[in-house]
């Protein structure tokens, strides 16, 4: 058996792949579900915090900055493990799925808050003054004048950060989430062959490559 045959036998084993691809597809579904939840809740929470911060209540802003810095500093895997193994000690028992969702949503919230906040503060003061001088209130000015402009400039950095954090769904395999990597790992254990990992890598590419290409397009369009 030559080198190439041995490689193919190990990583591209057709029999193993045929047996386990439905598991990987199921994992892909879980990953998509998890990723969608993280993106929706993480970005919504980040935007909410940035808007809250723009009201300029000092104590509130200290709290926001503390929370944001905390979740930007902690490695996502540490947060997942803390939630999954830590919360049961106060009688809250989150599943691996929920732990991963919550952790990555918090991380995305933290990073996106900073990006949204940078966008809001990048809008010239004169925009606020013009709107307020016509009688628009603070909230109306924010909603109709400031945010539409701020969101536009935040789209490129936001897209990149969202992709980076969403890929972290693979960390869920550590707490028994049956997403792509989790499915691939158990298939490897059961088949004594790493070919399912190849399938897993392919599944990640199928999911994230279009997203990355979309991100590139967004960056060109909005920059």
């Amino acid at each position: 058996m030559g080198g190439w045959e041995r490689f193919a036998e190990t990583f591209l084993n057709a029999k193993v792949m045929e047996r386990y691809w439905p598991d990987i597809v199921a994992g892909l579904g879980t990953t998509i579900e998890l990723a969608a939840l993280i993106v929706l809740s993480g970005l919504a929470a980040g935007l909410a915090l940035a808007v809250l911060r723009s009201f300029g209540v000092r104590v509130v802003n200290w709290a926001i900055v503390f929370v944001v810095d905390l979740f930007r500093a902690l490695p996502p895997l540490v947060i997942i493990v803390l939630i999954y193994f830590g919360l049961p000690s106060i009688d809250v028992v989150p599943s691996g799925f929920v732990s991963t969702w919550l952790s990555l949503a918090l991380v995305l919230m933290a990073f996106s808050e900073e990006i949204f906040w940078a966008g809001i503060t990048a809008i010239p003061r004169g925009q606020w003054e013009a709107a307020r001088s016509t009688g628009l209130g603070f909230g109306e000015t924010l909603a109709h004048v400031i945010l539409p402009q701020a969101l536009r400039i935040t789209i490129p950095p936001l897209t990149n950060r969202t992709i980076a954090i969403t890929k972290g769904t693979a960390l869920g395999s550590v707490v028994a989430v049956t997403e792509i990597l989790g499915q691939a790992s158990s298939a490897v254990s059961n088949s004594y062959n790493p070919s399912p990992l190849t399938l897993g890598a392919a599944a990640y590419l199928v999911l994230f490559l279009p997203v990355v290409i979309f991100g590139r397009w967004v960056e060109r369009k909005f920059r």
Partner: protein
Amino acid sequence: MIQAKGIHKQFGALHVLKGVDLDVAERELVFIIGPSGSGKSTMLRCLNRLEVPTAGSVVVDGIDLLDPRTDLNHARQRIGMVFQSFNLYPHMTALGNVTLALRKVAGKSRAEADEIGHAALARVGLAERADHRPGQLSGGQQQRVAIARAIALEPRVMLFDEPTSALDPELVGSVLGVMRSLRESGMTMVVVSHEMGFARAAADRVLFMDDGLIVEQGPPAQIFEAPVHARTRGFISQIQRH
């Protein structure tokens, strides 16, 4: 129409306004001139509470702007303001700029607001530009849209903060033309500007401010031809040399 009394404004240690009194009668056009840093823009911004005076009182059209019970957003609809840098909303069309407050503050329907907005744009000579974004308009056109945005709300007073300072010389005339027609319609106006020709032709009264105080005031002829104070004379001769 405007009664401002004993206005002081401090930014930390910086004392920008040191007790300014300003009364403006209905249909009067008051011009404020003075060197940069004299406090004239700050004074103007106190008249719609974009700046909150440290001390003093501001009453516009019978509304006490410094009373915490005053509905400021309601009061500001009656006080139009035009800025040096236009401050149009870049993500909206000219019509969108003019109608936003009509819809969100004055409570007009979109159809009503659009009708008023088109009329306001026509008044500033930009009926044809309603669907253009600010980025597609010249500086002079942008400033006229900004004026339309203010007058669409039918204000009782208009404040102009150096409305032509950011414009190329050939675009100044169109903005001054709109201001002149506003003047002729009987609008009460307070204008911070160095457009002396316009001041001579249109102002009822010229105020010279320096170092946070009104140094001298009077009809344009008096201030420009026969100023009493040395500082006024120095300033007038300086700007007339240019």
